[in-house]
Structures are given as structure tokens and as C-alpha cells.
């Protein structure tokens, strides 16, 4: 099968990609100005302290040797030890990943649910009021700084009306987290059948998720509208209508063709959000990867920084891989 060989080649491609990314991360941390030992030790440290840190980190060896050691470590899943939490970076990352995933997955689902029907509606009735409103919103959402939007929402919904809980954490401070299964509080409390925890975690999740959804629905909406109206004016839609196919079938034809780029767009957004929800996490004290990254960066915890960058990048590469395979399944024209 050609499809199978495509899948195989696409999977093989992942190897140089990850290698490249790892290399860049290595260069980023080791070669740019700013001695990591110096960063770690802080500006007041004596030369002796710095030297001992250098030795400890293997920084006094030749650079290629350091590179190989680093590659070897990464291959074994050893991303180094965090200066700040003094645990393995990989463990830290894995512990915080579910929080971020829960947030951005829900955000993306919400965004998709807002964008797709709106985009379709506006494409089906161009130049109407709905179209103008929706395209205005699309434009605005793209320009909107998400962190600012989050602040406004917190101000109005929490500060003024108190209809959402305080933007601190993922669950009420008085409650302990649900028993760990997936690490996503909503899912875990559901599995546990714990109504109070579920309620609280959903309440905490809604606002940050909606904030992200509101902003990132913009590009998806624009894409849906563009591809859908293009599809509707396409030759084959015109022909389907001329063949007297019922409206429902014609719309289905158009939607299926319009959906491909929309799915790509959604995938790219997902890959972006894994590292792009940093500011929102910060504002809601979410305790996910993003907040971890900020902590690491502000305290110059360079092992944690490189680890988190590497982990999120590999995650987005996996998302893009999934997109490509999905495309393969949906579009018969792809046969490399």
C-alpha cells in the first residue's frame, strides 16, 4: 500500500525533526552569551562557586562532547534536574502537563464550536448582518492580546459580579485535588464520581478556557469562512447544484472540502497553545507547564527552561504528525 509507506515515511521524518529541535535547544542554552553557570550561581557568586558548578554540569568539556552527552541524556528521557524544584525536569513536566492539556483542549473544543457554525453561517449568507458581525469579531479576536482580555474578564466576572471563583488554581483552595488518574481534575473527579470537586474544577476551568477560546476562535472562524465561501463558489458545487442535488447534500460537499484547511488550522493552534497559554496560566495561577516555564525563566533554571521548551516542541511535532495522518485519511488526493 502506498498509504502505508507514506505513514511510515512520515513517522521516520519525526527522527530528524526531534534531533534538529534538540540541537537547537542545546545551542540555545550553551552557546548564546550568558554562561549558564553564571546564570545559576547568580551575580554575587565567587569564581570558585562558578567553577564548581561548571564542573558539575560538564561545562568544562569540549562542546561536541557536551552535545553528545546531552543527546544521550535526552534519548534516555533525562532532561536534567531542575535547580528550583530539585526534581527531574521530565517528572516536573509530566506532572504539570495534564493541567495545561485540560485547559487548552477544552479551549480548543470551545473555539471550534464557536468558529465552525459561525463561519459556515456567514459563508452561506454572505454580506448579511451575521456575516459582518462575525468577520468583525474574527478580526478583533486576532488582534486581541489574550492576557489583557483575561484581566478584563476577571475584573468583570469575578471582581464585579463574583460569578466565577477567584482566579487562583484549578480547584477550590479548601478542596484537595481528586484522586490522581489522568491528572486532569475535571476528568478525575468525574471518574471518582465526586460532585463537589467536579463542580469546583469545572467552575475554575471555564473562565480561562473561554478566554483562550474567544481569542483563538478568531483565526479558525476566518479560515472556515474563507474556505467555505471558496468551496461554495467552486466549480463542483456549482455543478452539484446544477445536477439538482438537494441543499443538504450540496452543503455537505462544500463542508467536507472546506474542512481540511480548518482542521490544519486547528491543529496548528493546538500546537501553538501548548506553549502559548503561558500568560493565561500565569494570570489564573494555573500551575501548568506555562507557569512552570515562567518560574524557570525568571529564576534562570536553565535545565528546566530547556526541558520545557524541548517537551512542548516535541508535543507540537506530534500534533502536526497527527494532522498529516488525518489529512491522509480524509483527502484521497494525497498519495506521495
Amino acid at each position, binding site marked *: 500500500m502506498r498509504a502505508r509507506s507514506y505513514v511510515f515515511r512520515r513517522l521516520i521524518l519525526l527522527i530528524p525533526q526531534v534531533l534538529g529541535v534538540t540541537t537547537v535547544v542545546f545551542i540555545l542554552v550553551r552557546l548564546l552569551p550568558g554562561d549558564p553557570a553564571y546564570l545559576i550561581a547568580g551575580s554575587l557568586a565567587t569564581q570558585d562557586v562558578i567553577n564548581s558548578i561548571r564542573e558539575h554540569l560538564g561545562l568544562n568539556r569540549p562542546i561536541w562532547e557536551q552535545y553528545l552527552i546531552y543527546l544521550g541524556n535526552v534519548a534516555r528521557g533525562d532532561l536534567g534536574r531542575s535547580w528550583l524544584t530539585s526534581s527531574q525536569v521530565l517528572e516536573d513536566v509530566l506532572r504539570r502537563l495534564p493541567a495545561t492539556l485540560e485547559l487548552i483542549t477544552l479551549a480548543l473544543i470551545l473555539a471550534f464550536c464557536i468558529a465552525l457554525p459561525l463561519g459556515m453561517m456567514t459563508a452561506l449568507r454572505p454580506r448579511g448582518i451575521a456575516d459582518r458581525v462575525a468577520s468583525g469579531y474574527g478580526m478583533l479576536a486576532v488582534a486581541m492580546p489574550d492576557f489583557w482580555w483575561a484581566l478584563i474578564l476577571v475584573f468583570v466576572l469575578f471582581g464585579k459580579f463574583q460569578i466565577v471563583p477567584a482566579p487562583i488554581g484549578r480547584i477550590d483552595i479548601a478542596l484537595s485535588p481528586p484522586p490522581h488518574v489522568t491528572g486532569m481534575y475535571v476528568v478525575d473527579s468525574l471518574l471518582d464520581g465526586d460532585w463537589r470537586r467536579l463542580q469546583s474544577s469545572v467552575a475554575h476551568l471555564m473562565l480561562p478556557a473561554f478566554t483562550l477560546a474567544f481569542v483563538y476562535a478568531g483565526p479558525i472562524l476566518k479560515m472556515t469562512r474563507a474556505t467555505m465561501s471558496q468551496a461554495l463558489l*467552486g466549480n463542483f458545487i456549482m455543478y452539484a447544484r446544477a445536477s439538482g442535488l438537494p441543499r443538504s447534500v450540496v452543503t455537505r460537499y462544500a463542508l*467536507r472540502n472546506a474542512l481540511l484547511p480548518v482542521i490544519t488550522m486547528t491543529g496548528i493552534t493546538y500546537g501553538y497553545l501548548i506553549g502559548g497559554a503561558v500568560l493565561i496560566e500565569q494570570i489564573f495561577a494555573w500551575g501548568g507547564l506555562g507557569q512552570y516555564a515562567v518560574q524557570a525563566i525568571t529564576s534562570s533554571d536553565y535545565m528546566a527552561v530547556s526541558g520545557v521548551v524541548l517537551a512542548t516542541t516535541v508535543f507540537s511535532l506530534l500534533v502536526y504528525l497527527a494532522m498529516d495522518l488525518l489529512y491522509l485519511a*480524509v483527502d484521497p488526493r494525497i498519495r506521495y
Partner: protein
Amino acid sequence: MSVLLDVRDLRIEFHTSEGIGRAVNGIDLSVDERQIMGIVGESGSGKSVIASGLVNLVNPPGKIVSGTVMYRGRDLLREPDRSLQRIRGREIGLIVQNAKSALNPLIPIGRQLANAIRAHGTRDAQAAADHAILMLEKVGIPDPVMRLHSYPHQLSGGIAQRVMIAMALSSNPRLLIADEPTSGLDVTIQAQILDLIHTLVHELHSATFLITRDLGIIAQHCESIAVLYAGLIIEQAPVRVFFRHPTHPYSEALIKSVATTRERGRRLLPGTSPNIYDLPGGCPLNPRCPLVQPICREAMPGLQETSPGHFVRCHVRALESN
């Protein structure tokens, strides 16, 4: 023979930022049952817009601004969408150019064909699939059962065109509109496709509009001809009459332009077709016409019958024939 489709004063305009483009400027046209009517015109003459106008499917920014298209007692331009849906495809079949782009790229052709068949009355899925195979066989596609699973991008232009013919004729339409069905195909394939259309419409007793820019196709396959220029019919006649006595200066030039033997200093028309956004006053041909008279710049000539069944839109030629 009775009239099947009768078009009166059809006008189609394009409203864009460049202004108003008058693509079709008041066309009267009718086709009898079983008649094969050829429409010839160059690019910009409005011939393809007419094809979509006939089934009331003009894409924006195009707009039908006036006229009637009477089909068996109903005006297609004023019929509600639901009943149009039942006429399109079922009673009026359409074949367009570049079939590969007119088929849905994501669905196997068998399913597209079956979808069309089911839209026109065959409820049963199995019956629709069987009928699809039958139609593919009818249009001469080798190994139709296997072809059902092909996607449009896997077909050659000729095969795709055959699939489209199968779709258009699957419900025995009374009228077939073929809009440049062979443009972009090689001559040997073109010959196959035209022969196929010709045979099938005879078999099904369908009337046909054959729209093309190739006079040869009209001469070989049609009974009468209408010549379009700048959205107007400038000459209309039975095919034999037309080729023996082309009367309008544009028709004369058109016939001369497809001559095969060299003629020293043959007189063609200088210049180019007018811009539909900026049509000249009077007869649209006047800037290029060798016979031009002052009146041609002032008044639009009417379509006059110079001999029985032969209509010409030209001040000068109308006078000569009287």
C-alpha cells in the same frame, strides 16, 4: 415540433467595483423538443453565463436582471428553489467544460453518480448503485464496476467528461445543456466525446444546447445555430443556411477565420471584442465593422428575418435584403 424551452429578453449583469458588466443583453432563444441547437461565441460573448442563466444558477457577482425562461409552462427564473431542484438535473442536464474540476474531489465517482440518481427519484441505494454502473457502461467507460471507486483526480480528462455525461443523462433529461464539453481535450478524444453526446441525445430524444467557440463542432453536430457577440444574438439560422449564406459581418469573419487554405489579404475584423463594462453605443460591432454606417453608432439594430428562419442583427444587411 413543439417548443421545449423559450428564453425571452434574458439580461444578466455583473455588479463589481469596476462598474456594471453587461454580460447578456436581452437574448431571445428557443429550442424545440429533440432539436440540437448550437450557440457559438468567443470569450466574453456571454455564452457560458447564458448556460448558467438557463438553469437560474448565476454565481454572484452575476445577477439575472430581467427576462423569462419558460420551460413547459413554468418560468425557471421565478420558480421557487425547491421545484427548481427537481427540474435541474432531472429534466435539464448540464455538461460543463473541465469535468475534473466539476466533480467533488473527495468522493468516489460512483457515489457522486449515485447521489445524483437518488436526488431524482430512485430512493433505493442499491438500485441507484446499479443504475450508476449502467450509466458508466453506457458512456463507454471500460470496467465500470471498478471505476465506481475512482476519485476524480485519478481520471483522465476524457474519462472525467464521460462520467459527467453519465451524470447529466442519468435521469433521461428532456434538455441537455453542453457548455464547451470538449474544450481542453485532444482532438481524438473530442471526437469520441462529441459522437457519444450525439448518439445518446438521439437515443434519449433530448433536446440540446451545444455551446462552443468552434464552428466546426456546430457544423458537424447541430441543426441550427445562434451566433453571440457582446451578449447579443447577432445571427440565428438553420446550420446549412448559415454556412452557405453567413450574413452578419461578424459571422463572415468568423467563418473566414477557420479557413484552411491561404487567402491573400483575407479580411478579418481588426481590434478585439468589446469590454462588457464599457460597451460601445449602437451596434456593439461598430468599432470593428468593415460595413459601418453612421446609424450603426447610434441605434442598436433589431434582429430581422432576412429569409425564413434566418435572423440577422445588422442595419446594413437588413437594408440590403429588403
